[in-house]
């Protein structure tokens, strides 16, 4: 769109100067960046695509309800497949990959990163604001659609309002949020290191969370899913034989929790440190 020059007002003559910012770290500045980052994620097209993906388990649950005459006998199996396999193993890491991989990259490619880097915010805190915003949006997304999926599975059952929706939904959402903390930190960091982060990320999800997590071998200790499953078995009193987890030998709930939190803090901290030291080159129109 173009406008006639006359549509613009002339500059004013005064140029009074405002109060200057103080010299301390401004939490208000950080909070502003966090809020705007959340808003960027929420209004992006990626969230719409993820929302459509997250509707898939609920859709499958509805199909099962209406086309399987013996659905009532298979409610638990349906929940197991959709809520404890499909969502945590595929959709949750995928949502983290899609949002976290773009949190810095989008700013660089859109050349808006300059507006962040020339502010009196330490670079690691810029990264932390972006990371936290990505995690909040992912966690909210998974919480909403976990509740929707549980509703699609259990709607009409006697304990739906008393047990399933308030309690079970909150529990699985909390576990999902915990795993997202690690995934967002992992994929955010990966996006600083590799160019084809989506490819690498999908590879990680398929190989580690999809294959290794299901093999009863040491390597599954490197997967997020294994710890989430341990927490599911210990805290939700869930027993899925195909997970092949021997609770007497597996880490305790606290150990699993601290492992996940430690991984998230470690990965996130390392990535923030890297972001703080890395030069970010923004292409200029003239290449000068």
């Amino acid at each position, binding site marked *: 769109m173009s406008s006639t*020059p006359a549509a613009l007002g002339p500059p004013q003559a*005064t*140029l009074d100067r*405002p109060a200057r910012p103080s010299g301390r770290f401004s939490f208000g*500045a950080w909070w502003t960046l966090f809020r*705007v980052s959340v808003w960027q994620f929420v209004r992006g097209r990626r969230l719409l695509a993820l929302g459509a993906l997250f509707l898939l388990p609920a859709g499958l649950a509805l199909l099962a309800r209406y086309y399987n005459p013996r659905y009532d006998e298979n409610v638990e199996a349906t929940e197991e497949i959709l809520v404890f396999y499909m969502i945590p193993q595929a959709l949750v890491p995928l949502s983290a990959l899609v949002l976290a991989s773009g949190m810095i990259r989008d700013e660089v490619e859109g050349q808006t990163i300059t507006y962040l880097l*020339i*502010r*009196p915010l330490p670079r690691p805190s810029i990264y932390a604001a972006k990371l936290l915003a990505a995690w909040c949006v992912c966690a909210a997304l998974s919480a909403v659609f976990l509740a929707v999926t549980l509703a699609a599975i259990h709607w009409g059952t006697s304990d739906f309002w008393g047990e399933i929706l308030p309690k079970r939904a909150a529990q699985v959402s909390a576990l999902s949020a915990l795993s997202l903390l690690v995934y967002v930190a992992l994929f955010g960091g990966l996006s600083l290191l590799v160019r084809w982060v989506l490819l690498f990320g999908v590879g990680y999800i398929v190989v580690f969370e999809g294959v290794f997590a299901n093999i009863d071998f040491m390597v599954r200790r490197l997967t997020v899913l294994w710890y989430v499953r341990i927490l599911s078995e210990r805290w939700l009193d869930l027993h899925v034989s195909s997970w092949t987890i021997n609770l007497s030998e597996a880490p305790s709930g606290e150990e699993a929790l601290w492992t996940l939190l430690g991984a998230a803090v470690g990965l996130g901290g390392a990535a923030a440190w890297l972001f703080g030291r890395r030069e970010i080159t*923004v292409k200029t129109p003239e290449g000068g």
Partner: protein
Amino acid sequence: MIPATEKAPPVVEFRGVSKWYGNVIGVNKLTLGVAPGITGLLGPNGAGKSTFLQLATGQLRASQGEVRVLGRRAWNNPSLNRDIGLCPEQDAFYEWMTGRQFVDFCARLGGLPGPVAREATARVLDEVGMTEHADRAIGGYSKGMRQRTKLAQAVVHDPQVLFLDEPLTGTDPVARRDLVAIIRRYGELGRSVILSSHVLHEVEAITPRVVLINRGRLVAEGHVREIRDLIDKHPHRIVLKSENDRALAAKLVAFDDVVGVELARVQGGILVETRSPDAFYGRLSRIALEEGTAIERVESDDDNLDAVFRYLVNP
């Protein structure tokens, strides 16, 4: 090289600074002190102006040497960012924000508390003549509006040093006039402004003090008049278009200061080289009135920086 005349402590100081992008040199062993006030950073496209500004605003780390702004290290120094403002060259925004939201966002990122940020935003939008359009999405702004908005975000926190990377590029004449007025006023307030451009007359309209760089190296610094004096040691190239170019050429070769006349091969006209441009221009008005050689167009080829660098780099 023209020596700097200013003795005040420099606001921006480069000490033997080099910046490489792989095998490409952005800035090459640059030693330079920019004194307070308004300074034009001149250079052709690809000269290293943007690299200079990115180094000075701490976005890039020098491969070699030291960059200091206001006496402080520039690279990755958040506390310094309170005292500097940057209007970047790239035409990038959060397009979905309104102009007011964007400037307010930048003010808050700059550390201004909410109410102060709102008040500062309203004021700078007024200063750059954008109040009327401030509540529209930036995605619908014209180039001039976008440049004004970029300038507003750069000054909203009242920086001591303002870096402007090609701020007049692509603007219409009205926006250009307004932006020039705003930049000059900012300098009059005692702030330092470093303005990059590849157009000499753009910078001349704002400040007489210039730094010339080319291929990442300092070519000259000083008063723009000194640059022009340097240019005047060489024959000036002036393009004239008249109703009868051959007749005009015949008249011009008679003058002693004219060292060459060439019938221009492109778009008609003649190319004149003179060693005394003032004398030449002085008699041009008389010739223009003579019958048969009425002059339709006069262009000085020396106003473009390519010519300046031709003279300075290859004297």
